[in-house]
């Protein structure tokens, strides 16, 4: 059904777009390496080696990215950081996708007073300084992997809900929605069968653009020491650790920072490319 067309259209159109091809390719490559890498490497992310601290990146003994102040292999730790970062990004996006699309579509379709109440609730949540709230939560409930996902998702779904609501309002004026009402389709089914599939384009684009946002928030939390707990790590935590060793072992900062920047840029380019793809003005060409 609709997802099918979307996939076929995406795959044909994607081949034409250089930015999507390139950024998508790099992301897939990074993800594959991050998953396979730790199995290939003889090192583990938590084994310390006090005889081999601050080893420069070298092919000898397979410390490709060198080691840190505790002699842990940076290559494996970086890949683990990539895994965590991507996981955070994906879970946060799914949270924002599910809540945001459902909330926005319902508010937009039902309209009237219910819509007003639902959207004022969103406005109220917007008014909260989320980062401080998250920091507070982290301090109160101890640092918790799950809490990060929830916190980041909770920030992102607000934007998603607004965008989806706007799209829904314009879609529900279309005649196929009237036609669906006339043939007796119930309201919930109109929302999920007629409205949401037509939102997919916008939603996909928006998700790819929120992923970097989620990554940044996670990095920021980790940088403040409120994110992932040692010995586990994320790219943000690695950058944080690298900063303190910057003068002694610059690779500890540079390698995770460059990777983080690459991932962020790739997602941004991917989002831009997808947005062009779904822009109706582009389609007419």
């Amino acid at each position, binding site marked *: *059904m*609709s997802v099918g*067309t979307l996939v076929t259209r995406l795959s044909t159109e994607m081949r034409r777009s250089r930015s999507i091809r390139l950024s998508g390719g790099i992301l897939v490559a990074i993800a594959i390496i991050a998953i396979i890498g730790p199995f290939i490497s003889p090192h583990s992310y938590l084994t310390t080696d006090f005889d081999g601290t601050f080893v420069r990146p070298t092919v000898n003994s397979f410390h490709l990215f060198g080691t840190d102040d505790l002699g842990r292999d940076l290559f494996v730790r970086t890949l683990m950081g990539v895994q965590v970062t991507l996981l955070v990004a994906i879970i946060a996006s799914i949270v924002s996708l599910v809540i945001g699309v459902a909330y926005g579509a319902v508010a937009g379709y039902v309209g009237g007073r219910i819509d007003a109440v639902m959207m004022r609730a969103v406005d109220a949540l917007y008014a909260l300084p989320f980062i401080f709230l998250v920091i507070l939560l982290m301090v109160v409930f101890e640092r918790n992997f799950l809490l990060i996902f929830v916190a980041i998702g909770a920030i992102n779904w607000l934007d998603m809900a607004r965008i989806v609501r706007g799209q829904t309002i314009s879609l529900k004026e*279309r*005649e*196929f929605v*009237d*036609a*669906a*009402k*006339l*043939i*007796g*389709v*119930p*309201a919930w089914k109109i929302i999920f069968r*007629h409205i949401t*599939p*037509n939102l*997919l384009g916008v939603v996909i684009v928006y998700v790819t653009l929120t992923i970097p946002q989620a990554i940044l928030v996670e990095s920021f939390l980790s940088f403040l020491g409120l994110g992932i707990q040692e010995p586990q790590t994320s790219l943000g935590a690695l950058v944080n650790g690298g900063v303190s060793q910057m003068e002694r072992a610059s690779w500890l900062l540079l390698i995770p920072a460059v990777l983080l920047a690459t991932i962020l840029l790739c997602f941004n380019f991917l989002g831009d490319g997808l947005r062009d793809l779904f822009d109706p003005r582009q389609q007419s*060409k």
Partner: protein
Amino acid sequence: MSLLNVNELSINYPGSPPVIDRLNFAIERGEAVGLVGESGSGKTQTALSIMGLLPENAKASGEVVFDGDNILGAPANTLNQYRTKRMSIVFQDPMSALNPYVRVGEQLNRILIEHELVSEDDVDDRSLEMLQLVGLPDVKRQYRSYPHQLSGGMRQRVMIAAALIGRPELLIADEPTTALDVTVQSQILGLLRQLREKFNTALLLITHDLGVVAGNCDRMLVLKNGELVESAPTREIFTAPAHPDTKAMVAAAKRSGMHPHTRKRPTDEQPVLDIAGLAVSYSVPGERRSRRKLEAVRGLSMTIAPGETVAVVGESGSGKTSLARAIVGLLPIQDGKLSLSGKQLKGQVESRPNAVRRELQMVFQDPVSSLNPAMRIDEIIIEPLTIHEPDRIKANKRELVTGMLQRVGLDERLSRRYPHELSGGQAQRVAIARALVLKPKILICDEAVAALDGSVREGILELLRSEQEQSGLALIFITHDLATVRQISHRVLVMYLGRVCELSDTESLFMRPKHPYTKALLDAVPIADPDVGIVVLSELGEAPSMMKPPPGCVFHPRCTYSVLRCGDDLPELQDFDKTSVACHRATELDL
């Protein structure tokens, strides 16, 4: 030497067949040439290439010779020597062609200043003079209006003023009246002709409507898939078309005016739909927070028998669509009663029981937007049954879809396509199939063929007619096109500003209209016969706003026959032999 010579013009877009293929034609000074063809035949592309307005990715080859110079592909500053001063264009949609943020007069002034047509001091005078020439009432006030404050017809008059302000030698008019009501159309066409004679301007009139060309052009060019299939004097094309496609076009145009359908109107015991005193209104957010009421339909009563077709006609803003949407329950009813087979319909569509919902179906104007772009054709056709008869589709979904597609004249291979892969006509057939799969008692077609080309339109009408014969379906056919009305309907309801003017048998309506408004509508229809010409209803003007309907008979300010009483009393609908008319002078007038 001709004013314009188009030699071997071809236009290509990357990755698709040529939209114009080696086109040759010429336009003499002061001559009016009609360029006709179905949509997608390349009419507009030809116009754009003459004006140098083709999009950047278009590749044009050949020559466009204007008064001896080839201007095809010329740089912008060369073209600007020609635009406005020597040639101009009027587009179909006047709203999108005018800048919404700039006052009308200022827009004309800018053209004059940009092209240094008159000295700065005379700019205002020249613009005012031009607006006066195109027949804008109360010119001083309109001069200071923004485009959205003008009606569609007035906007198109402004566009014509803008196009002719530089006294060009060639005017290209690309479907200049397609977006307008027939009454306004006849006025605009009359205006074009009058100004053309005054300034001796050559005209290239692009249209899909042969009726528009018949009375307005000396010569006709017929395009088909980017190729010129025929070029001859208008009279010759209408009397002896040479090319088979032209023959079909002319035959279709003539048939629509001449061959009324002659089936007898079923007068059944019980009406399938009974409308009594129906009123529909919207609240419109007005200025200063005051919510004003727009009464779209007022006091409308009629009955429809099973198997009958009632056409609803009127200008835009007459309340036709509101009537349709209120019947099916997409709009709330303010007052009055609706009964389906004797049972009263209550509430809007969401609150009606499913058994009632399936009896009332609707086909919309834009076939593409009425089909969900994310659903496959077979899913669209079968969807009504998934709600009403889920058991029936479990076993034989394929056969049901194939059967429905065949019934509406579509290839079964289309079932796995998506709406955007269909043509307009095919999509409309799918929409009809979706409506008919529930076997409704009433099908409402809201301008269902308005967006379609002539031959496709005929096919859809034929389909609806045969469906009606087989199943006793009652049709409510909403349209602004009177030619279609005559072909399909038993009775006609003429609406004006939400009120019924006349409810009549189709033939007596066309032969002996009783209401002055009906007469005006009929006179305004362009007839596809060069010998008949066009009646210009310049005194008719345009419909007033629905927000402020005039007192008494709503039509009286535009009515040539109005007497004192018309402005005071609202006329009741009086019954005559084959017609009911709401006019105080119905008995005495002989229209």
